[in-house]
């Protein structure tokens, strides 16, 4: 639907995140291009999920701004923010599926709220979205009745219900077996390619990062700011930050950045 020209879709400008006076990350400044699969990475507790929550507007920045297609989200009024959010699809760490509703009702909810579609059309779209994530025929199941991997995929079906421009994932493959995790990666890749959506992921699953990410940012817990930005493979082999190389090689590459070690041969 969109041309893959390197056009800035989301920009983070001098963002400082804090809970009260406790600063979590400061001076974050980077761009996410349209059609990117962008990974926010970093050790546990560095503020990855907090950054995502800021981008989603669930938390307000202490300083700085977040722009979507050049439009400030932080400064926009409630109505404009709402309009921007409508073009996003979000899956939460533990699914966030409404447990009192069937999968079909979960996926249908955004369609009922925001599209003029009739009931029949909505049922068709729901069937299609569930089929897309490999859950065809599971319409009448409740979230409690399906497995964790299926729950993640069902959450993805709900996230893509409105054909979003941006897809946000918070730890999509946490708690999944390697194969389910791989299938989810493939699905994200496939969806991104056929719809042209921008994908923002918070994850520290290395195989996942190398398999799908086109660009990434590394948040450092010690210095409380971003210390690396670029493609993950590039960062693994040539980053000037030892922490980043260590992170991307599971701590097994404390050597010099100039010599790209051929150890992580899994990709």
């Amino acid at each position, binding site marked *: 639907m969109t041309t893959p020209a390197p056009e800035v879709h989301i920009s983070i400008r001098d963002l400082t995140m804090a809970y009260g006076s406790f600063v979590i990350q400061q001076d974050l400044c980077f761009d996410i291009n349209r059609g990117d699969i962008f990974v926010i990475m970093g050790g546990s507790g560095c503020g990855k999920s907090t950054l995502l929550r800021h981008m989603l507007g669930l938390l307000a920045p202490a300083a700085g701004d977040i722009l979507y297609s050049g439009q400030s989200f932080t400064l926009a009024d409630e109505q404009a923010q709402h309009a921007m959010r409508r073009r996003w699809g979000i899956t939460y760490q533990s699914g966030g599926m409404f447990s009192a509703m069937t999968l079909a009702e979960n996926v249908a909810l955004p369609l009922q709220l925001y599209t003029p579609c009739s009931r029949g059309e909505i049922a068709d779209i729901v069937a299609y979205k569930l089929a897309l994530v490999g859950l065809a025929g599971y319409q009448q199941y409740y979230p409690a009745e399906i497995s964790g991997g299926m729950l993640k995929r069902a959450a993805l079906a709900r996230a893509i219900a409105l054909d979003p421009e941006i897809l946000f994932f918070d730890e999509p493959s946490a708690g999944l077996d390697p194969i389910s995790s791989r299938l989810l990666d493939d699905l994200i890749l496939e969806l991104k*390619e056929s719809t042209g959506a921008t994908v923002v992921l918070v994850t520290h699953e290395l195989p996942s990062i190398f398999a799908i990410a086109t660009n990434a940012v590394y948040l450092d817990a010690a210095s409380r700011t971003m210390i690396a930005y670029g493609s993950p493979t590039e960062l693994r082999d040539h980053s000037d930050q030892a922490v980043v190389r260590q992170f991307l090689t599971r701590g097994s590459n404390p050597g010099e950045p100039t010599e790209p070690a051929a150890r992580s041969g899994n990709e």
Partner: protein
Amino acid sequence: MSDSSAGFQLVQQSDHSALLTLSGDWLQGSRAGSFAALSQQLHQATPESLVVDGAGLGQWDSTLAAFLLRCHNHCRQEGIPFTTRNLPAGTDKLLRLATAVEPHRQTAEPRGSWLAALNPLTVVARSTDFIRESLAFTGELSIALARLVAGNSNTRFEDFRHFCYQAGPEALGIISLTSVLVGMILAYLGAVQLQQFGAEVYVANLVTIGILREMGVLMTAVVMAGRTGAAYAAQLGTMQTNEEIDAITTMGISPMEFLVLPRFLALLVAMPLLTLYADLLGIVGGGIVAGGMGITPLQYISQTEQALAIHHLAVGLIKAVVFALLIAVAGCRAGINSGRSSAAVGQAATEAVVTAIVYLIVADAGINIIFQQIRF
């Protein structure tokens, strides 16, 4: 929406195949194509194969993909070969993705309708389940209590103290309000009747006996069922959801001893004390109304003193202990047996309050009958 020619056309080909040409913008709300119309045409035509041509398509979104999926599924059902050509690249890929997995056939028995829930057999089956579950819970609780008495229990005194505070001092505000009002209501009710015989002064006796034996403890129990019983169910239900109860069990600690017992004992301690407090305030409330009817405070107090007998107080306190037991059991049982979702926790809290109140009223009636028989 801009393109008026959005839609589809089914053309029968000479070789018994059908050509479905799609055109225009297929966007949400453009009502480009309804599958029902196509399905009718397909039934009439009964083609041997279906070819979908998307050369004339403009913009598209999920509406198109959903339509194609229905076509694909229809053909799969009827055993007709289904091919596509000239479709936008994205759609083709998405369609392949959507049809990669066979639709799941529901193997579980169909979910019961609301009518089935009224079936006497199911009602009986559910009640027996409930009774069995309650008995099992009571049994486990008794074992935990026995272990506590024997001195080898994992119950933490700190938890007990914490729950005592929650069930006791924190409840004083709401109990004060309800008991004063109930005392006033009782006094009004009695005064209107007693006035007819010129015996207003006996309002004090009525209020004292009514509050001590019945209303003080019952109102306290109802408030505690809503306040503490529901809280217990919600706490334990959420712990079940968070797998905290699993963690406790696998550490070799009985959830009964660790979670249920402190709550149960706290309520058992708090309820009689709250009842005494409620009794006092109820009598004060009655006094306020009596004062308004021309009875002097001195008259009211001396009349109350006459009515105040130790056995009335004892009846109330015995009830308080029984009610505390029932509220704690109803709350904790609902919480421990809760499902693992937000809806299930809500259900557990509701169940805790409803069963507690039913238990209270049944137990109250039973205790009253017994005391009446033994003339206590």
